[in-house]
């Protein structure tokens, strides 16, 4: 096992436990929970194979589903964002992404915020559509998406700033 595999496994477990043991029980104002586990998919090293990202995203979503008794909604949402990740990367970072030379720690804050926000909103929309599973309750879906997204974006943005490696 090389170093990056160990790191990934550890990060996987940490993110999973933080999500199911802490974030699933916040219930701010009765029903608003952040879903910070998408950080794992968001910040996965850019140059890795897309297949790996999709499979890992599915596994992570499935594990969250196991803990929160939600069928397959997290798995579906996580697979979706893992699949469209390159598109979002290109949209938010533009040319730098084309050259395959970016690292999340030295991107601009604005770009990073756009990336995180788009990522989160898409994920939450898929998640809540499948969870409610009733198109006539679209208002409820959008409302849940909006409030949870705000919460998740704030937490994700803060943690990328807090845990990013120091620039030399």
């Amino acid at each position, binding site marked *: 096992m090389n170093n990056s595999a160990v790191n990934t496994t550890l990060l996987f477990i940490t993110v999973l*436990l933080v999500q199911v043991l802490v974030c699933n029980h916040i219930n701010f104002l009765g029903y608003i929970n952040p879903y910070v586990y998408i950080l794992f998919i968001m910040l996965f090293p850019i140059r890795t194979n897309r297949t790996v990202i999709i499979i890992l995203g599915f596994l992570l979503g499935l594990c969250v589903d196991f*803990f929160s008794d939600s069928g397959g909604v997290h*798995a579906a949402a996580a697979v979706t964002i893992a699949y469209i990740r390159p598109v979002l990367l290109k949209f938010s970072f533009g040319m730098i992404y084309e050259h395959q030379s970016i690292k999340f720690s030295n991107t601009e804050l604005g770009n990073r915020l756009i990336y995180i926000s788009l990522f989160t909103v898409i994920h939450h929309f898929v998640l809540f559509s499948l969870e409610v599973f009733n198109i006539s309750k679209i208002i409820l879906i959008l409302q849940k998406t909006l409030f949870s997204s705000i919460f998740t974006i704030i937490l994700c943005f803060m943690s990328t700033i807090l845990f990013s490696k120091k620039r030399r």
Partner: protein
Amino acid sequence: MQQIINFVIRNKTFLLFLLLFGVSLALTIQSHSYHKSKFINSANFFTGGVYKQVNNIGQYFDLKSENQKLLEENNRLKSILFNRETDTLKSFYADSTMYSKRFKLTPAVVYKNSYSATNNYLTINKGKKDGIQQDFGVITSKGIIGIIDNTSNSYARVQSILNTNSRINAQLKKTSHIGSLRWDTKSPELAQLKDVSKFAPVAEGDTIVTGGQSTIFPKGIPIGTVNDFVLDIGGDTYTINVKLFNDMTNVGHVYIIEHLDREEIETLQNPVNE
């Protein structure tokens, strides 16, 4: 053939995505029907074990409120016991073998509870090896919680009344007009009693109890009080908003009810040679 293989190789990411998305969609749809979500549930060895470890730490924090609940329940039971008109002394030594037994109760601890999703479940620390099976009722000292829908060896998953799939037979306490208790996902404090006949004399503050028509709960377990009610558009039935006695956001200890005559009743209701 060559072309098919080429096509698969070229689109392998997209096909993988479709495959995994399909799998998760299937799991989602499956979870919407009762008794079918065998695979994804938190009552398995791994997740149950993790929740157990966390509960071992967390349970100390609400010891005080749990003690208070126990005290209240003891108080209520004692006051029933002491206010009986018949021979008090005899009832002190009442043994369970003296009655014909119809219900068996098992205490359990809640490891995981949720109330913010549209389909909520609880995980408890009793399972097959404690004799727990599907379709046993779960209550607290204050009122009902839900129905067991999945069991593993040492854990079980409870479909909470805060679940859009849940249907529980309930009635007005004073007149026995029955209805079916559901949840419309709006508030964890309110459940909806539907299909109550328009001839029922409903008033705000009336007590709603379980109906005893199903073979899951005994008759007369408290559910809640009438918060408000409307006549349905059809004009024949009421929909009643029931304010639950239980605080579903704070459930610690529960009792599992096993109806010992269930099989007998069910064979009577569904004769085999029809």
